[in-house]
């Protein structure tokens, strides 16, 4: 087994948002430190992984990148199942991609687990002169809905690492409060452990409380 496969937690995360907002490049920046100017549109889903350390634990993120075009949602929403995190991406230079965030949240409500951790990501922050979505507007929107929020640039790398670190840490905090379920399976981690360590619905309420407290104070 390769070194890459030794991990304490496996979290499935999905990347969603309108077409052309830069989901695939966020993923390639995070997992391979690459930005592809010649990237093609994602058809269906694509997959990548990377492991990070949180509190001395190795967390492996299994990230599913999805096609943005609305008509693909029937296909891509199948991948929301079992996901413990979602990065909902819009383009700070295209207001309509921010307007559509509502619809994406509804998609998550309809197809994802209730306790999925959602982070709103305003990508292409390098396009300062073309900015169409004010940072404060997006932050306010996120706060109202208890979402984490960050602005990134996959092109110049700003905050990409941070975005993934933050959401993975947040998921880890939620999950590690349940030592019973996370620690019980002593066998070697397998694909799908991400599903095993999902916090239960009972915890979800507490999680939501914690989350609202957190976003209120920080």
């Amino acid at each position, binding site marked *: 087994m390769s070194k890459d496969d030794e991990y304490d937690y496996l979290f499935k995360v999905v990347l969603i948002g309108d077409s*052309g907002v830069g989901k695939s490049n966020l993923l390639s920046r995070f997992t391979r430190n690459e930005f592809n100017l010649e990237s093609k*549109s994602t058809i269906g889903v694509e997959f990548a992984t990377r492991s990070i350390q949180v509190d001395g634990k190795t967390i492996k993120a299994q990230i599913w990148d999805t096609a943005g075009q609305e008509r693909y949602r029937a296909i891509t929403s199948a991948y929301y199942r079992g996901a413990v995190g979602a990065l909902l991406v819009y383009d700070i230079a295209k207001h309509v991609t921010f307007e559509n965030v509502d619809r994406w949240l509804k998609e998550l409500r309809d197809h994802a687990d209730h306790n999925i951790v959602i982070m709103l990501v305003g990508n292409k922050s390098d396009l300062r002169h073309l900015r169409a979505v004010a940072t404060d507007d997006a932050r306010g929107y996120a706060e109202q809905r208890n979402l984490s929020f960050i602005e990134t640039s996959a092109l110049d790398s700003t905050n990409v690492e941070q975005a993934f670190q933050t959401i993975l840490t947040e998921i880890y905090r939620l999950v590690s409060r349940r030592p019973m379920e996370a620690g019980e399976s002593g066998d070697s981690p397998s694909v799908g452990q991400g599903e095993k360590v999902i916090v239960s619905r009972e915890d979800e309420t507490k999680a939501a409380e914690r989350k609202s407290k957190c976003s209120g104070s920080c």
Partner: protein
Amino acid sequence: FDKVLGAAVIDLGALQALCWSGCPAEHRAMTWRLLLRYMPGNAERREDKMNRLRLEYADAVVHYFDKYDPEKASLYDKTMYNQIYVDLPRTNPSMPLFQNEQVQQSLHRILYVWAIRHPGTGYVQGINDLVTPFFFVFLQEVCWNGEVMKFLTPSQQQKVEADCYHCLTNMLDNAQDNYVLDSKGIQEKVFKLKRIISRLDEKLVQHLEANDVEFLQFAFRWFNCLLMREFSMECTLRLWDTYVADKSFASFHVYVCAAVLLSFSKELKAMDFQEIIFFLQKMPTEKW
């Protein structure tokens, strides 16, 4: 080919049989136009019909594309127009030809008119890939060397565009169910692919299942883009020689996908979930 194509009334059956096994580049444009039933086999009727269809396309461009106004356009029209626009720079980006602004404008017109005329499916991401082989072939016919667009006259460009539009239309008419709302055609074909592999290489299917790899995860794109994302343009053109010669190419494509997958059976059986997905996402087929 010379003989068949030179006849006053072309024997399309004979041409089909020839093209199925590969068409020489210099005959490709004409052969594809004929086999896609865009150009009539009868030389006498040819010019009239071509002129009429090219004019019809030009009218549609004026009517739909040139008059497009984001303020007045319906939601459907706007969505189509913008989605195509977003995808233009991402269309076959490794070929400089498709980074040319004039070419992208052509593709925008072709795809938009196609989307408006096909409300049952609309423009679906990936169809932008499917128009490029036609564009490449019809452009090559007009001009063989690199700096093509500079020398292309407006009337030549219009012809290339119209030919692309009609050939794309006729080709996709045989694969419409791939692009309907729930991609029903693709789902069925992926299912069929799995059945075929089960028959031919049961161990491979078992291995994929044991590793939680679903066929839809990797094969969706193979059907949506007819393996264009996996193959070079050269390889795609050869494959399409066979596809334009076969009306039921969409079903035949399942067997092509099966052959591709089986060719990597040995490698795949030694891989785990992650390795399999990575491998199938970026297969070493670019040099095929």
